[in-house]
């Protein structure tokens, strides 16, 4: 018992130290590098939310851009046309996306794994095409392929989530990421997490033990969609424009899956480590060679092939293994 308390204390201390380090480091970075760091954490966040459905529940989705786009569009439309703060719009988008997620999940969860993946891809494509072709729904302007610009306000305005100083964006996304990881951790260690793992491993066996797989998957889908949509609102506020080609793109959905797969899918901190490694490499490569188009995604593709070929469980388990080995050596030495 005492040992456990010590462990949680250490964890809390590490957490506080990380937060402090983040605040201090963010003071010294200029907006350009801050942007890169924000992107890294944002993809960690998206991939973590993706991980709830596709990692924990084993329902491999390649259409999560739907939820990101829904979140972004909802908060932006509410803000630009009804004057509602993006903070509320974020939640509204989240609820909307969760509802849509359940609607998608109801018929689709009966499909086999590969077919489910194909359906999500097709749905994302339909969504992209619909948004690209519709100019307005009733009195709500969507502007088809042009997208919606978010009018900028001066200075740092917390109420409308617009900051000239990028470091506030960094704080927000880190807060979101922390919440997301906490939710993941909670799911993983609760009864639901074990049931989800059982369903992901062998659905028939899980069902024979009275696990309601359908409801569980729907729950996972709703949580995952909600989180993605909240992140989507943040993304829209960050880039100040809602553009279907950017928010509903297949490349975005693929990216989430790739980041999470590389880090270690089904692990709580897998997507985070994946984003830290992959996204930082690709972002800095793009920053260094800005004139070469497509470098960013080419790196993603190659890393994906190499990763699945040589370490299919992701990077995090390997790191953990080495860390454990290191500690064991130390223990032996001290003995």
């Amino acid at each position, binding site marked *: 018992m005492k040992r456990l308390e010590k462990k949680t204390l250490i964890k809390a201390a590490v957490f506080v130290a990380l937060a402090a380090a983040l605040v201090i480091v963010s003071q010294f970075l200029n907006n350009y590098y801050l942007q890169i760091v924000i992107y890294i954490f944002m993809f960690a966040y998206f991939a973590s939310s993706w991980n709830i459905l596709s990692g924990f529940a*084993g329902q*491999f989705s*390649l259409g999560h851009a739907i939820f990101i786009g829904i979140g972004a569009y909802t908060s932006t439309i509410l803000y630009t046309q009804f004057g509602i703060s993006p903070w509320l719009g974020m939640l509204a988008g989240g609820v909307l996306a969760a509802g849509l997620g359940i609607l998608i999940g109801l*018929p*689709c969860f009966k*499909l*086999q*794994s*590969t*077919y489910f*993946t*194909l*359906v999500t*891809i*097709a*749905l994302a*494509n*339909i969504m992209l*095409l*619909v948004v*690209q*072709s519709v100019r307005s729904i009733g009195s709500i302007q969507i502007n088809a392929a042009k997208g919606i610009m978010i009018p900028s306000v001066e200075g740092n305005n917390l109420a409308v989530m617009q900051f000239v100083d990028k470091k506030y964006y960094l704080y927000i996304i880190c807060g979101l990421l922390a919440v997301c990881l906490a939710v993941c951790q909670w799911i993983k260690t609760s009864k639901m997490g074990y049931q989800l793992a059982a369903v992901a491993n062998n659905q028939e066996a899980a069902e024979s033990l009275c696990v309601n797989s359908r409801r569980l998957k729907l729950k996972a889908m709703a949580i995952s969609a909600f989180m993605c949509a909240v992140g989507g609102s943040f993304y829209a506020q960050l880039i100040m424009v809602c553009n279907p080609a950017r928010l509903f793109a*297949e*490349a975005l959905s*693929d990216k989430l*899956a*790739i980041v999470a*797969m590389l880090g270690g899918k089904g692990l709580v901190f897998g997507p985070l480590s994946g984003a830290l490694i992959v996204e930082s490499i690709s972002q800095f490569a793009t920053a260094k060679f800005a004139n*070469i*188009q*497509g*470098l*960013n*995604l*080419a790196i*993603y*593709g*190659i*890393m*994906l*092939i190499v990763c*699945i*070929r040589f370490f*299919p469980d992701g990077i995090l388990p390997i790191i953990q293994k080495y860390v454990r080995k290191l500690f064991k050596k130390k223990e032996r030495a001290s003995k």
Partner: protein
Amino acid sequence: MYYETLILGLVMGCIYTATALGVNIIYGIMKIVNWASGSLLMISMFIVYGATTLLHMNPYLTLLIAIPVMFTFGYFFQHIVIRPLYLRERADSNPVGLLLVTAGLGIALENIMLMIFQSTPRSISMPISLTYVDIGFGRKLSLVKIIGAGIALVTVALLWFYMNRTYSGKALRATSQDREAAQLMGINVLKSYNVAFGLGCALCAIAGVIFATFYTITPAVGTTIGSKAFIILVLGGKGSIGGCLLAGLIIGLVEAFGGLFFDSYMSQIFCFAIFVLVLYFKPSGLFGKSRV
């Protein structure tokens, strides 16, 4: 007007069938959704472009270059990357890793080409590219598209012949039906898989040559055409060549008439909607055998 749309739909349907054949063969035999097929098609379009501009070859003759190159590529990609994965993933019967590997290949190829060639649109000009032939009732259709449809139909016929009448084709089909039994009959299953993947890539090359003759060549072209291939794959049912042709014709017609009555966005939405509905109500495809 309907007549012209009908013919155009049928011609495009044949051409789409050619793009879907490669995916279909690979899925039918190995149960792998080859997500890279669009990019492979794009690569072969660039091969055609290179051969016609640098070597001044006839675009149709470049088939002789594109097919062997893509076959070799597919054969060795399967041998080096997919085979170990395949052997590993048999155990947990979750082919997502394989799907992602091919997706990764697709993304990598597309973006590497984007790095090299930028997104400048290119196209091939031939003496016959602007020729239009009379198709009756005073309507005209571009000659290259008709030739393309012809090549596609010949490919379908040859592939059917290969799969049903030759020894190695029969071996491939046996492998797809029952891996263990095929192995017991003395078929080298893993080598069959290499051949199947190579064959799938070679079929992509043929489709690439057809498209290169009338389509704009950009690194992003694969995604546009490739998504059609998956719709046809699901619609036609796995591994059935005839079903693939029928599904291709259906998609061609849906696209042509959707474009006539609505706009191009709507026709694409229709295609995807059909895809989702078929997946939901009849996952084995309209013309496929039901799941065993």
